[in-house]
């Protein structure tokens, strides 16, 4: 039984939002992810965001692919419909759902394997098509659910838990997003709630394709560059029983830093990641500059976080296609079926 209903204890004192709902009303079933998994922090941020924005959960549709990350829509917004599709194909399902009803909020959740490998084509084309959705990549640089293979966002030369080298350069999804024309591109860190929630709020309000690339450490198959000390320690102890089936319970990794600051965050394996938070004078409306900044910092090993790029003027898919303003799924059959007389006319064209 992996479906565990959360105990429905009501704390009468819980804060209510403008809809009279508490945070609890935005939760899902109990997470089955590893203790300390970054993905759970992202779920928490989504709950926080929706609660604070007073969003009615049933006006949100949650979509995902396959992976630990893609499981998470089960762990938030129980009152929203969800669709956990097939691996790497969430973008197309989300596109179809969005086309059918332009009035809901579409929240797509994916992993780096799901997006950057099997799903790279669909990801790119959903961007190009300007689907009005929030696309969250819970980026841990690994294939969590299949036990730790490298993903395409993994840093070159890092080592897997099994000690293998990653041979290939990583794909930077945020840069790719900007390059392909995403109207809103942000990056953050799962443990930086203070940055994450405001960024999510902005993404939720954005009309068009909003990409959030969220670094989300994997407790279990963390595979950033090996820092001799602590990495070996853990390897010794997991190898104490020879197979890689021991997952120590971990604390969530958090990061609290100022705009314009660059900090080192210690990963579960003891390695360090460099985060750079964009400063206030950064202008996210200039795509060329955004790309240049990202590339420059990338070369020096820094992961830039913040709102990287935004373009307010982009039309979304429905505007481009000039679809009617009523959701297509709400049209009545008599608005859709031209009826007998019209068919007779058409018959005449073929007579």
């Amino acid at each position, binding site marked *: *039984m*992996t*479906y565990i209903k959360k105990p429905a204890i009501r704390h009468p004192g819980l804060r209510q939002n403008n809809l009279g709902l508490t945070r609890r009303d935005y939760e899902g*079933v109990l997470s089955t992810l590893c203790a300390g998994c970054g993905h759970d922090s992202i779920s928490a941020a989504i709950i926080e965001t929706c609660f604070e924005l007073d969003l*009615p*959960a*049933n*006006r949100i*549709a949650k*979509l995902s692919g396959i992976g630990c990350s893609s499981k998470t*829509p*089960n762990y938030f917004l*129980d*009152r*929203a*419909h*969800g*669709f*956990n*599709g*097939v691996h790497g*194909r969430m*973008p*197309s*399902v*989300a*596109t*179809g*759902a969005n*086309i*059918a*009803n332009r*009035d*809901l909020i579409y929240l797509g959740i994916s992993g780096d394997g799901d997006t950057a490998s099997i799903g790279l*084509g*669909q990801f790119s*084309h959903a961007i190009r*098509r300007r689907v009005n959705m929030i696309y969250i990549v819970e980026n841990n640089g690994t294939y969590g659910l299949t036990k730790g293979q490298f993903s395409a966002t993994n840093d070159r030369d890092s080592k897997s838990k099994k000690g293998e080298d990653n041979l290939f350069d990583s794909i930077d999804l945020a840069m790719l997003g900007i390059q392909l024309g995403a109207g809103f591109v942000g990056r953050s860190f799962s443990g930086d709630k203070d940055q994450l929630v405001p960024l999510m709020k902005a993404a939720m309000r954005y009309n068009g394709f909003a990409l959030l690339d969220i670094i989300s450490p994997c407790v279990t198959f963390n595979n950033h560059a090996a820092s001799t000390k602590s990495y070996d320690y853990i390897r010794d102890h997991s190898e104490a029983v020879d197979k890689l089936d021991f997952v120590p319970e971990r604390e969530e990794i958090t990061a609290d830093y100022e705009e314009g600051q660059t900090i080192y965050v210690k990963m579960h394996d003891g390695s360090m990641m460099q985060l750079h938070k964009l400063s206030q004078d950064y202008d996210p409306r200039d795509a060329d500059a955004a790309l240049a900044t990202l590339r420059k910092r990338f070369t020096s090993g820094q992961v830039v976080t913040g709102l990287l790029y935004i373009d307010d003027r982009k039309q979304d898919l429905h505007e481009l*296609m*000039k*679809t*009617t*303003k*009523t959701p*297509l*799924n709400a*049209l009545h*059959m008599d*608005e*859709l*079926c*031209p*009826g*007998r007389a019209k*068919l*007779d006319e*058409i*018959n005449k064209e*073929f*007579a």
Partner: protein
Amino acid sequence: MKRINEFVIKLATVNGSGSASANTLFAKALFRLGLYVSPKNIFPSNIQGLPTWYEVRVSQAGHMARREGVDIMVAMNPQTYAEDATEVLPGGYLIYDSSLIRSFERDDIEVLPIPIAQMCAKEYKDLRERQLFKNIVYVGALTALLDMDYDIVTQLVEERFKRKPKLIKPNLKALEIGRKYVLETFQCPLPVKVRPCEGTHGKIIMTGNEAAALGCVWAGATVASWYPITPSTSLAEAFEKYSSKLRLDEEGRRRVAVVQAEDELAAIGIAIGAGWNGARAFTATSGPGVSLMSEFLGLAYFAEVPLVLFNVQRGGPSTGMPTRTQQSDIICCAYASHGDTRQVLLIPGDPHECFDFAAQAFDLAERLQTPIIVMSDLDLGMNDWVIDPLIWDDTHKHDRGKVLDAEALEEIEQFGRYLDVDGDAIPYRTIPGTHPTKGAYFSRGSSHDAYARYTENGELNAANLDRLARKFETAAKMMPRPVIKRASKASKLGLINFGSTEPAVREAVGLLKRDGYKLNTMRLRAFPFGKDIAAFAAEHERIFVVEMNRDAQMRTLLIAEAGIPAEKLIPVLSYDGMPMTARQIAAKVQGTIESDKSVAQALRLSAAAM
């Protein structure tokens, strides 16, 4: 040989030379004259410069299958002169562009040289026009040779260029050039010729893809996602054309969305997302696309998402013969995807049914909450067929299936997405956004219980799989019934066919009857099979199964799924990519009857009972 109103004319041209339009004009004129025509466009997988044929069977009697042998060949392509000439029946005619004179080594046919290129060179200055109007010139010539009512032809030209009136005159001129030349040069009309009749009055001439597209419009489909692939492209394009014309709201915005996806995986993914979200959605593709869609087809089956998929079949395997016809995706579609997956197929037999089944498919998809695959083929989809006008019953209520709205949700205690409430194994669904607190659920391709909750409990999952199997039994009851035509109640010989082989089968059955062999026929129109299928099989000792594939795929399905003993079913196969002919079928049937003892025995049984 009867050659008035019963003949085959073939136009051999070059791809991209503008002949297709002229040829259609010609066929349509014959149709307007009251004749059944069944033009077959035999085109290469290329854009310009390769041989192309347009073969028109003309038949007052209503035979719409291909027929072997050509009565009149219009040879416009020097590349294929040699082979074109061999196809002409003794006593037939070969017309060619004699701007460059050549000889054809046949003294049993009559060669009619017309210096088409020369005449055009004289008449038109623009190089393109010279090239283009060559096609209209031979149509003009044919009007005289065949004794076609010229007014009908000129009227067609006028209709066609209603919106570009300045083009009417040059076209009429081209017609005249050809007509005048043959009237002056040859004895017109030829013995092979037409005589106006009433045969097709009140009928229409249309391709299956156009009809299917119209079916989608009338069914209320609002989302179409597709990826270009021959021969399904024209279905999607026709839908785009009609729906965007017929579905404008007050502000000129569209009540439809047509998306050219980046590939077939995305195309079906979009349809699934839209179907899940309560829109009527479809995609159209052909073999390679179906293969690419198979993972998603399993998801839609298991998560129970309605959608319609048109598979306009072409020659397989792999890329195969993209511009030829086959019925070779039967097994691949019936069992599309891994695991215990089975899909519902609708199999139209002519464009009229393409329309009807397209419309029904959306009702069935939503009633059954599963993909419905409409199995067409290139011949049906891209060639023009003479059919009765399409009919729409304004009292028809589109059946959206079991959907709970906010009100209904208020009333029930606990919503279970995959509960079998009614005992028909079809559960109730909800559309996202319906109700503030009730009815939300999680769709997934992973194992789930009746409440759509993830489960690894093997028994719960098996129970859900059992319900899906029962749902398939429910589906069998909803399918269009087969069309059974009996030559004789007592006959123990049967024939089963489906799809575009119908005209050939009808004609073959006539030929066989003439020779004393009475076959009862059953045209399958859907899978899963209803009771009629086994019943028909039980009534007959030997049954021919006509299909256009190598592996007798429908026969396999009949054996495996309708429980018909293998020895009863005799395959009649064709897989050269061309629509079948009556003689192919009749010859195989007759040959088998005469050589196979078991069949002869069946025949005796019938005779005894007669």
